[in-house]
């Protein structure tokens, strides 16, 4: 190992990155941009659902019932329709995602103590959103029934309405969410975004950086000189690892300042784990670059081997335990899941080395394996 050769290569590489506009943006602009786009766009909270009421009853009962839906943050009442004819167009265009049709005679039947139905239409194109919407509707309807029952009980028994309501619901669930107290999806997603972006950006930088030397012929400067494979890996990849590590901090600051996510764990441990993770993903880029010969191929392969596991098998969208057995196996075989656990643990659960050392160990093993493979597969005297 010769330090001068390593620094010569690293310095050269750094200058190229800093001067090439495309490369520079790939290194420094794309990661924060992805964070912003994903963070703002990927919120899974379902609120302010656009909603209409078709009141065919026009009674005090129906008005009171409908008003319950528009009072909270969940539904955004767009207005009343007199007739369900226009509803089809409104729902098809996405202007309206839920509708209540209160039938004529609604108030009269209730007053007579008879059951009645309210037809509810929900846009089912996104199942998770539809189910959440149905949950809201159920809850509001249940509350309406409870209130009606309480009123009746109060009239019959002479209790106050509040007391009557308590009698009707003797057991209540006292729920307290831990780690993400307000169950904000942003708090859950943003730490995982760090994982996704640091899974995608370093391999792209690395594979394109190495393969473009192969494509141009500059790789012959490695082959023809006494620069060893180890020196090349250090000199060539050090700038990419350093940039990616810096990006980890930029993303961390964005998580705190832009998205307001709390960081409760050990910063030192998180820094260490992020460093190891970035090393690991850079190693993925290195292997891609050894297997490919053109920049286009490198980009496609990188996209496939990073984006798919980072999004599907890491716990971003679907918790790993909810994946099928094959999915779980894949998730455990890839590094993304382990860093997800570290990121979520450090941000929300206040964890550190004591809880997360096994995950860190797996990542370190992964990085070591990738670089060893890269070193062994590289040849300064190839066959073609």
């Amino acid at each position, binding site marked *: 190992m*010769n330090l*001068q*050769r390593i*620094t*010569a*290569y690293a*310095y*050269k590489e750094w*200058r*190229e990155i800093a*001067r*090439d506009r495309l490369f520079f943006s790939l290194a420094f602009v794309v990661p924060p941009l992805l964070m912003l786009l994903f963070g703002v766009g990927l919120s899974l909270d379902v609120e302010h659902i656009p909603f209409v009421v078709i009141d065919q009853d026009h009674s005090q009962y129906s008005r009171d019932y409908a008003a319950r839906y528009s009072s909270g943050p969940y539904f955004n009442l767009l207005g009343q329709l007199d007739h369900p004819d226009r509803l089809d167009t409104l729902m098809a265009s996405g202007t309206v995602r839920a509708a209540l049709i209160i039938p004529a005679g609604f108030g009269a039947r209730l007053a007579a103590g008879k059951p009645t139905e309210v037809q509810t239409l929900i846009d089912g194109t996104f199942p998770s959103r539809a189910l959440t919407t149905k949950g809201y509707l159920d809850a509001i309807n249940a509350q309406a029934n409870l209130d009606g029952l309480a009123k009746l009980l109060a009239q019959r028994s002479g209790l106050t309405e509040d007391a009557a309501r308590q009698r009707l619901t003797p057991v209540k669930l006292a729920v307290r969410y831990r780690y993400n107290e307000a169950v904000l999806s942003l708090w859950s997603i943003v730490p995982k975004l760090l994982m996704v972006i640091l899974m995608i950006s370093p391999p792209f930088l690395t594979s394109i950086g190495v393969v473009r030397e192969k494509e*141009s*012929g*500059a790789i*012959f*400067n490695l*082959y*023809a*000189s*006494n*620069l060893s494979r180890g020196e090349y890996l250090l000199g060539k990849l050090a700038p990419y690892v350093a940039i990616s590590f810096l990006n980890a901090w930029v993303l961390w600051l964005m998580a705190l300042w832009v998205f307001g996510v709390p960081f409760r764990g050990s910063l030192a441990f998180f820094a260490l784990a992020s460093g190891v993770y970035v090393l690991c993903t850079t190693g993925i880029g290195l292997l891609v670059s050894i297997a490919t010969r053109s920049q286009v191929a490198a980009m496609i392969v990188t996209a496939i081997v990073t984006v798919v596991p980072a999004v599907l098998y890491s716990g971003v969208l679907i918790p790993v335990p909810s994946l099928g057995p094959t999915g779980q196996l894949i998730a455990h075989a890839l590094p993304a899941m382990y860093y997800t656990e570290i990121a979520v643990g450090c941000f929300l659960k206040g964890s550190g080395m004591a809880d997360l050392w096994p995950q860190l160990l797996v990542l370190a093993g992964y990085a070591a394996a990738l670089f060893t493979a890269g070193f062994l597969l590289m*040849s*300064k*005297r*190839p*066959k*073609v």
Partner: protein
Amino acid sequence: MTEGGKQPVVEARGFRKRYGAQRAVDGLDLTIHAGEIFGLIGPDGAGKSSFMKAVAGVLQFDGGSLSVFGTAIDSDAAAESIKDRIGLMPQGLGQNLYPDLSIEENVDFFARLRLVPQAEAEARKERLFAITRLGKFRARPMKQLSGGMKQKLGLVCTLIHAPLLIVLDEPTTGVDPVSRRDFWAILAELLQETGATALVSTAYLDEASRFDRVLLLHEGRALAAGEPSSLSAAQSGTVLTLHDLQSDEALQLARQFGYLEPRGRDWRLFLAGLNAEAAQAAITTLLGRTVQTRASEPELEDAFIALVGAPPAAPPVVVAQAHGAEPVIEARHLTRRFGDFVAVDDANFRVLPGEVFGLLGANGAGKTTAIKMLNGILPPSSGEGWVAGADMKRAGRAIKARIGYMSQAFSLYTDLTAIENIQLYASIYGLSRQQARERARWIVDMAGLAGFEDALAASLPMGLRQRLALGCALVHSPRVLFLDEPTSGVDPLGRRRFWDILFRLAREEGVAVLVTTHYMSEAERCDKLALMFAGRVVAEGTPASLKQALAARRGKLLALEVEAPRQALVQLQSAGVDASLHGRRLHCFVADPAAEAPRLCQLLASAGLAARALGELPASMEDVFVALMTELEAT
């Protein structure tokens, strides 16, 4: 150069390299001695790069033995042990350099990579900058350099650690003749200074005289090896340039001698095994009259073709026909600016139907831009381009049906077969099925593609791929054909066939052909030439008239053979002689070669330099080109 018993720098015995089923080098034996410049000459795909990479220790090979500095290169470790003594400049102009780094940063990087002590690196860098004249551009990013400058920077970076063996893979491909001549002079000077050995490859046969010894490589095998003069001399014979032939006489000659090369309105004929008198006598006997001829020595290209043992091609039955005197390509004050940069500056030229017109110039002189304007791809900033009777600025799509265009990159779809490529172009140009079938048959016949119809374009040999690309450009029977460096990297036989087709198109069908090339031997073939410099057309005329203008301006060429060419050059130049180094010979422009020869020999003898006058040399297009360019660059 060889000293008895001294260890050779490179020694190969039965060297073999294959890529899959394809044999790149098939049993090569060669020995390179210390201090010599050894040239590997051959077309693309001959196996030059594979061998050179193996010598530099950057490519594994499959069989035979190879030793460099006495070390057998049989393992990665063995290859590694010699790399500090080797400098490799891989193929592709400046491709191993870093575009975003400046000249100086590139050189510094290579110096640090090679662990050159700083003081030594600085001193060597300044010396190399001085010789290559790159010093004043040291802060310029590499991506902004011209082809010639990139090539020189590549050389500086290769030499910064003072290697004992330098391996230069096609350092002059795609570079104009002036930069090429400059490059060889610099290389010779540097090698003389350092005493290093060089292994150099080139696809230009006329560069052979730059080397001490050469090996002609063709399809992975050595055709011949030795000193360059001995190679062409080994092929005894005479080249005759004939004027004023009737077309039936041309036909007769072609039948008798196998091949007759049209050169503008003249003809060039190589007669193997005959000296000048015998050759002229043979012509007179055959034609029954005395034809005006000029005899010259055969060139390496003649030897190459003879050695390849080319089957005598069907004689080009080129019968010149009258095709009208109205120009079909005309540039009138054609100008194109890119910001402050004037790429084409008030260019004027005209091409008649049936004429082969050559556009010459260094890289970046504006040739491609001019062609793009005439094609209607790029609108001119001012001036007009008229093609086939239409103003290209206003011409609609219809006019493009009358134009054929073939770019340097042979715009073929490599994953389609030959016939599929033709069909694709036919449908792009809207030919009917019947027309497309007829045209495809014509192209297969014209391009000699029979038997290759269903081969993927990617798998075709260079020469065939090039003729297929030409065929695709001709699928709609255009009246005007634009060719932008169509023959780069194609072997001499392939180029010869290509030009025969061009002449047939021009002479028989009246197609106007505008072609750009870096091969000066191809420039000689054109009816008319225009030379571009910095966007301007600086000379126009037939090859003969351009040569006459050169003689009037600078004088005639006298060739001298000298023992120490570099010292002799300095000696002559300080005496005010217009001399240039040409391999191991000196070319001097003098008013009267016969009278001046003794005087110059005397001059050199008095300085202790043995010299022999070789007599007057016919000026080549390269001489014309280099002379013009250097005059213009000086102003």
